[in-house]
Structure formats: C-alpha cells, structure tokens
C-alpha cells in the first residue's frame, strides 16, 4: 500500500474583511496517497485556491493541520517552508506562472537549479518531459512567445521535474480548448501515476474528472462531497450528476 503523501486535518482558514469573518476553508479533512490523482471542484469562491495555497505552504491556516510527507507545516519556520516548497511541492498557478525572461526549457530547468540538481541527466529528463507535454518545438520560446495553454504546460513540467511529493495545480486547463485540456490533464494524470506523486488539480470543468481517482467537492469552504467510485466519477465527468 502506498504511503500518505498529504494529510489535512480539520483545516480552517478565515478572513476578516470589514469586521465580517468568512471561512474560506471550513473544517476540511482528507488524505492523498502517493500515486493518487485528486480533483478539487466547486463553484467560484468556494475556497479551492485558498485550500491549495495552504497546502503549498504559501498561506498559514487559522487552525487545523497539514502534513506533507509526514511533516507538519505548522511546526516549520519560514526558511523550512521555503525549502519544503522547493523540494517537496510542485505548483502551477491560475495565472502568471512562468518567469518571463526565461525560455520554456530554462523555466523548467530553473526548478532543478533551485534544488542544486541541474545536471546532464536531469536536463535530458526536462526536455523529455516538455516533449511529452507537446512542447518539443517551443523549448527556446519565452513565455510571451507562447499561448496561455503552452505556458500552462510548461508550468506543469516545472511542477513535476524535481520529483516533488505533492503536485498542486490550480486550474491548469482554464485557458485551453477542450481537446487540449483533455490531452494535458491525461498526460498530467499519467505522470502522477507513473512517478507516484500525490496530485491535486483544481478545475471548474467537471469533464476533467474522468482522469482522476477521486473528486473532492467544495462549497462555501466546506468539503461537501467526495466521489471515490469509478462509476460515479465517470458519470460526474459526463455531466449526469450535479
């Protein structure tokens, strides 16, 4: 049985704006195993990005626990969190993913550089990864010379290249057409499964759920439903469940 890469216990994140407090994440608990690909779905404002930011150690929760590879984020200082982000986490953001003055290849390799692991073998791996994401002919393009979808794929490569324990992707398909989106998420799912990462993908598009092992549905910060059954997930992806 594969180990638990990510564990969330009673997680709460509240924001107070003008005196009113809202719970962007409200008492959420779940686990993700290595090699498991999970979708986080829910309406806009339901707390998905907030959730992901906490998992990526970019945001401190109000209460509750996050364990990555068994390490409790709350017990780390900022320096350790920075180290965790660069070693154990791969992250793609909703937008503004790439370093604008680095080419596609350099953006991916930068993750290796950060970890002091850029060598001949890892360079080859990085080019192979970009090739699998359909970017062989874009290696030398700067982000501004790529479409939004191509940029997202570069970001996915960057999120995977350093063999992180947990890969978090916030709406990587938002700027892709359906066909491209399917391709990208399928490749993403394959890479997660092959390499035994714990993957979480946030998406608006329920059709993308066909590639995941489990779907977590959020609403108003709460985890309202989990789909684990293959058949249920397939139906959800086809649009027969709401």
């Amino acid at each position, binding site marked *: 049985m594969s180990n638990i890469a990510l564990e969330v216990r009673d997680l709460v994140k509240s924001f107070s704006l003008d005196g009113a407090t809202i719970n962007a994440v409200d008492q959420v608990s779940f686990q993700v195993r290595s090699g498991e690909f999970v979708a986080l779905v829910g309406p806009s404002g339901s707390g998905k990005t907030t959730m992901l930011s906490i998992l990526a150690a970019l945001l401190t929760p109000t209460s509750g626990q996050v364990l990555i590879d068994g390490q409790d984020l709350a017990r780390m200082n900022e*320096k350790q969190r920075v180290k965790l982000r*660069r070693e154990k986490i791969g992250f793609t*953001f909703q937008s503004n993913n790439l*370093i604008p003055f680095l080419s596609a290849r350099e953006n991916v390799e930068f993750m290796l550089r950060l970890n002091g692991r850029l060598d001949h073998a890892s360079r080859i791996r990085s080019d192979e990864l970009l090739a699998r994401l359909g970017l062989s002919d874009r290696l030398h393009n700067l982000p501004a010379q790529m479409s939004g979808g191509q940029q997202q794929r570069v970001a996915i490569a960057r999120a995977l290249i350093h063999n992180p324990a947990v890969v978090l992707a916030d709406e990587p398909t938002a700027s892709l057409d359906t066909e491209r989106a399917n391709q990208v998420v399928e490749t993403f799912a394959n890479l997660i499964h092959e390499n035994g990462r714990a993957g979480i993908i946030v998406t608006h598009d329920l059709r993308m759920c066909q590639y995941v092992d489990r779907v977590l549905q959020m609403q108003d910060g709460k985890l309202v439903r989990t789909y684990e059954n293959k058949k249920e997930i397939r139906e959800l992806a086809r649009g027969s469940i709401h």
Partner: protein
Amino acid sequence: MKNFFLASYLAIKEVIRNRGRFLLVALVIALITLLVLFIAALGEGLANGNRQYVANLDAQLIVFLEKSDFSISSSRLETNTVKSVRRVDGVADAGAIYTSSTEIVSLPEPLKVSMLGAEPGRPGMPPVIAGREFRGGEAREAVMDRNVALRTDIEIGDVIQIRSTQGTEDEFFDLEVVGLVEGQSYFFQPTIFVPPATWEIIRPQSQSELTSDTPYPNIIAVKLADPLQTETMSARLVDEISNIEVANIETTINNIPGYSAQQGTVQTQGFFTLLIGILVIGGFFQIQILQKVPQIGVLKAIGSSNGVVGLSAVIQIIVVTMIGVGIGGGLTYLFSLGFPPTIPLVFNGSRSLIAVILLLVIGPLGGMVSIIYAVRIEPLKALRLG
C-alpha cells in the same frame, strides 16, 4: 555560494533578455558618468590653473604682510624682509615672489599672463626644463610656462612684447624668452618669470608707484631645513620678524582669490549630479520592481529564498551601473581626446577614481528601496494580482 550563482543567473538572464531596456538605463548612467567625470576634470583643471604655481613651490611656508589675510595680492612686504627670513634658525632658504598681471601683445591674439618676479636659484623660481635661467639685474629676459609656448608657438630665443599700463599710459616692453618651465599656471593664467628688478620696471603700476624703484615682494616662499616643522617654524618666524603672518602651502592655496568658492561650486555641481543619478536610478528600478511583482511572487512561491531574490536585485543593479559607468568612462575618454588645450580639463587619477567609486555606489544606493521592496513581496499576494 549557491545562492550567489542562482542570483547571478537570474539577474544576468533578465538583463540579457531585456537588453534594450537595461541598455537605456545604462546609457542614462553613462551620461551621468560623463557629466560627473567632466565636472571632476573641470574642478581639477580650474584648481590647477589657480594653484599650480603655489602648489609646486619648493617651499613649505609662505610669509605674508601682517593682516593681509593670506591674500597674495594685498600683501606687500618690505624689501629686506627676505634677508631677515633667511637668517631665522631652521630656514634653509627663502625667495621673494613678486606678482602681477600683464598681456603679451606680440601675438595675433593678445594673451593674458601672470608675470612673476623671482630670484634664480631661490624658492619661488621653478626649475627650468629647457633653455636657461634669466640673468639677474635688469636683464630683459623671461622664462616662460611651457603652456604659453604650446598655445602661441613662441620658442626659446624669440622676443615677445608685453603691454603694461604705467600710470595712465600704455607702455610696451620687449623681453627675450630664454627658458621654459612646466606646470606653473597661477591665478588661472599661464606665467612668465622675470628678474625682480626687471619686474619692478615693466609691471603695470599706478602713478604713485612710478616714483619708487624698489621692488616690494608680495610674499616670500620659505624652504625649511626640516619640512615637517611647519608649525614650530611658523611660530618662530612670526615671533622673530615683525609685521608678517605665515601660512602653509594649503592655507595659501585656499586663500587664492576665488579658489575656495570655485572649488565649492564645482563640488556642489558634482554632488547634485550624483544626487540626480541616485534619483534616476532609484526611480527606474523602483518602477521596474513594481512591474515585476508577479514574477517575484512566482520565484518565491516555487521556493526561491528572500536571499536569492534580494541578491539578484543587487547584482542586477551593480551590473547595469558598471556597464553604464564603463560606457561613460569610455565616452569621457573619447571626448577628452578632442578637447583643445585651452579648456581647463585635467583628468586627475584620484579625482576620477573617487568619482567612479561614487558612481558605482549610487546605483545600489538608488536601488535600495526597490531591493527592500523586492524582499518584502509576499508570494501569495503577488500571485493573486495576476
């Protein structure tokens, strides 16, 4: 060390990929450099023009008339003071110096010069680098600053004519040029040297002065047996000789009319140019950092430390400043080649070096705010902006 490589990588990649933008700032820095170096050179040139003769004197102390406030032109000493000075214990030698201003008219374009009377072989008379020293007495001979020779094509052996207002009338005197000295500009004019007795006859003088034939020296240059004993010797001279005051070379230079004011002006100009430099560089990098908030957010979010982000900003500013100062230095050199010798620009090593160091410092100084800003960017907020 790893941080340094990472930071350099980021800094330099960004500069190369945005070379147009960075070149523009580098050019602005280059122009500021050009300006600062020229102001420094002008300062040095003006200073030289004013003080060169005094600064190069083979003497440590200058004797003035009491209450002359160390002003060479208002000091008139008794003729025999120089003999008294030579008798003071600890004085190696002393020479009287007579100053005035005149004009060489035997040229297509009259040239204003400082005409100094000095005694051959005594302090006050600079070493002759070509030709010979003038004979004493009332010999109509002159030794000339090489600068004059360069500007006018006058050669050793030529006879020059000077104009001198005697009372109410212009009179003309012929002098044979017998030798050259170097670097002896005084009062912002090139100098010619003549024997004291000749000086007394041919110098411009008022009606009342015409009646006297005794030359009164303005100052006396005193060479000490022990050059380090300026304090003690100054006190001793004032003590033993009446009606005098004594200054060292530095004080004398600072009291040359206009010298301090002029240097102050030049330094203020230089200071403000550097200040403008700081503001321009600071402004540019601050605006740039505001545009870069999302990318810095990404860098931090994927695990770059504040150290790397800050260091990269510092390296970038230093690199751009160095390129700018380099271009500016090169431009200054090229321009300086084309400048006529009449413009008082002197590129003095130490002054230029100080200017270059200051210029290299103003980059990081100007960029300081932006660096602090970069380090403080919170990754999540930065990402939410996008």
